[in-house]
């Protein structure tokens, strides 16, 4: 009885110790992963900052103006071109309402 109890106790101890070590190793592994990922995130953040700065640089109005002049068939907006939406005659819609 007594001996069996000790045997069982010993067995449980071995299992617990073994699983604890297993857990510990997993934690260490995860932590290493975490560190790697954190540094990757950091790197991404830094490159995001650089990209944002580059975006701001590339979209600066004088550059856009030059690009638009060279590649687009657009002209500078004239004040005369701005009007009220009510003044546009939407014939089709009105007909639809009547029907």
């Amino acid at each position, binding site marked *: 009885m007594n001996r069996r109890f000790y045997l069982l106790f010993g067995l449980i101890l071995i299992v617990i110790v073994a699983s604890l070590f297993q857990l510990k190793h997993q934690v260490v592994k995860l932590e290493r992963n975490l*560190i790697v990922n954190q*540094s990757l995130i950091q790197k991404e953040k830094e490159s995001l*900052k650089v990209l944002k700065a580059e975006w*701001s*640089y590339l979209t*600066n*109005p*004088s550059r856009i103006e030059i690009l638009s002049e060279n590649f687009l068939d657009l002209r500078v907006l004239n*004040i005369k071109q*701005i009007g009220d939406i009510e003044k546009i005659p939407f014939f089709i819609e009105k007909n639809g309402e009547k029907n």
Partner: protein
Amino acid sequence: MVKKINKMIKNIIENSNKDNEKNLIDLSQVRLVVIFGIFSILFISLFLRSVDLILLNQTPKNNFSSSNSIINEKNRADIFDRNNMLLATNVNSASIYAKPAEIINKTEASIKLASVLNNQNFSDIEKKLTSGKSFIWIKRQVSPKEHFEVNKLGIPGIKFQEELKRIFPQESLFAHVIGSVGVDNQGLSGVEKKLNKRLLDSTKSIFLTVDTRVQHALRQELYLSMKKFNAIGAAGVVMNVNSGEIIGLVSLPDFNPNIKIKPSDDAAFSRVTLGSYEMGSTFKPFTVAAALENKVISLKDGYDATKPLKVSRFIIRDDHPKERWLSVPEIFKYSSNIGMAQMAKDLGVEKQKELLKKLGILDRSKVELSEVGKPIIPRTWREINSMTISYGHGIAVNLLQVANAYAILVNGGKKITPTILLNNDNESNGYVNNERVISEETSKKIRGLLRLTVKSGTAKKADRIGYEIGGKTGTAEKPTKGGYQKDSIITSFIGVFPMDRPSYVIAIMLDEPKGIKETHFYRSAGWTAAPTVGNIIERVGPLLDVMPTKTKNYWKNFEATYISVKSNE
């Protein structure tokens, strides 16, 4: 006998053995205790250490990531415009340093370094390397390309340190708003200097009231005018008349804040906020407003402007002489100094001073920029000062102050203070909108007079189809020691639009414009500054969400109320 002896010996041995045995047991017990003691000490220390590691020692041991995160630590906050356009940020950049003791061939190293670094020559580098110091900077904050090239050279003793570099992606566009930052992360001018502490303490981004698109239009139009009239400088500001928010602020010539310049350089000087100038006729509305507000005159009154006015040793002349009696609206639209001087005399020194004070003309502007000049005002304010100040001479202020004063005159008379920070919910904003400087009625009249000047006065060239623009021109000779220079002038135009519901004031100034063939060699504000503002309004009106109108409602009402009696021109 022998047996007896034998037995005795046996006994003795047995006894001694028994003694020995007892001794042995004692000894082993001591050993056991010692060993047990040692081991228990070891185990207790192991236990304590494990408790320490598991429960008490909470600091993460990831040195790898923390060494990489300088960008989060001593960071300057980013700066954005009102539409989330990035105006200033930090990026990692390498600085090159050398430990001369580790360099084998210093001359060769200098030649190699000079060949890949921009703006560095061989002899300077060699001088540094042979100076005998143990640590020297070769170049701070190099470009990624230079970093790569130097790394490729692989000279022993040449090393890199990661540093943060402040960069301004919009380059010179916001030179006089944002300013620049030195290599040691300290603001040198503009917002960067004024808010240096705030930018370093908190990583929360700062949003400015400026609009990149408006700023660009303003800068480009000013630049074109500056080149066209061969001026040495230009300045302009766009401001919301109801909130005091500065939408655009440009001073030319400007500089690229990514590249170091000397503070003494002309490009570093802000003509908008730092330079104080005699503004000339753009000052006239202030005295007219004070006179109308205090009921000294009405719009139907007038003054005799037939001949130059002689006051003690001064003679006051008109730039556009009409040589007849002029009504107040006429004095305004023809910009008559003679009429204004008489009006100032009737108004009195105190009342004129009081309004100028309330308009913020007499005090240093509180805008959040580091370069803000103090206005130059006469020490003793006599009647003659009051008369010259009525047409903008004998007092020097900066352009931003004038823009702010105009904003108050046209917004219905509510006091505002210029600001560059968006959502600036400090306590001042609350009472600002309640404090009244002039009455609604006076504000309406001033609006009418400003419109009149653009419609049929000195500023006709600012008029544009679509927007009802009002404004006042100013042409002033630059003062020198004991007098004025005839050949160098400052022209300015303060425009307001739209007149029926004023939203924005656009103030510009050209420094020493010259007459050109297109303007029949005239160089006054009506020919140089006024059309520039017209062009700017045409471009920025739609951007600022101001709906163009085809009717001239405001003007019609004004004319019917005030002018019809005297439109015998």
